[in-house]
């Protein structure tokens, strides 16, 4: 029995259009978010059972605390010394795996002064729950 199938084609077109929109939007934001500014300061982040250590560009090292300046860009180079960890600054939506033998990068720019939690988000052993650090953003 012959029948009109134009509604089906409209349906298919709408689905394809939505998928294109979703893909393009996500692609665009991902590019924006991953695009590191030129003046970003590199900070080496090392995770190990069960604490975080940080090394600034000038060689300053910090353990369990990270002092940053407000409205500056920072690029984290994240790695691990033992097992997989995950570097998370919840307040600034920074979340990236710390993997032994590999350097993962993520950048952000704190736009609010204050103290924020840094925590491990990958179960890494007995004291994973307490593998935290403190991000201190200074209004300079």
């Amino acid at each position: 029995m012959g029948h009109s199938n134009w509604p089906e084609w409209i349906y298919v077109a709408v689905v394809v259009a939505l998928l294109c929109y979703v893909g393009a939007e996500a692609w665009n934001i991902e590019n924006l978010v991953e695009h590191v500014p030129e003046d970003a300061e590199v900070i080496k982040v090392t995770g190990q059972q069960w604490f975080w250590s940080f090394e600034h560009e000038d060689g300053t090292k910090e353990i369990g605390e990270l002092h940053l300046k407000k409205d500056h860009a920072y690029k984290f180079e994240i790695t691990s010394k033992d097992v997989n960890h995950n570097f998370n600054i919840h307040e600034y939506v920074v979340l990236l795996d710390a993997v032994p033998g590999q350097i993962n990068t993520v950048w952000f720019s704190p736009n609010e002064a204050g103290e924020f939690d840094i925590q491990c988000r990958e179960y890494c052993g007995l004291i994973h729950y307490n593998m935290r650090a403190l991000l201190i953003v200074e209004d300079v």
Partner: protein
Amino acid sequence: MSKVFHLSIIIATLTIIPMVSLAFAAETAGEYLDRKAEIWNLFFRMMTVAFVVGGVIAGTMVWQVWRFRESNPKAKPTPYEEKGEL
């Protein structure tokens, strides 16, 4: 023909996507942005799309059940029912 088609799809995937990524990466350095706002806004836009799609699909199903129920005055028997095969 099918093999050629599949091969070309694979080659296109392996070359075009990295080329586009490289083209983006070759731009000048990025600008400062509020990462939190960008990511959450993207999330809310995607959620809006997801809920609209969900609503349309659920609505279509409800309409179908309502429209094609046996007790609908507009309901017509299918050709099989007319012939008494079911």
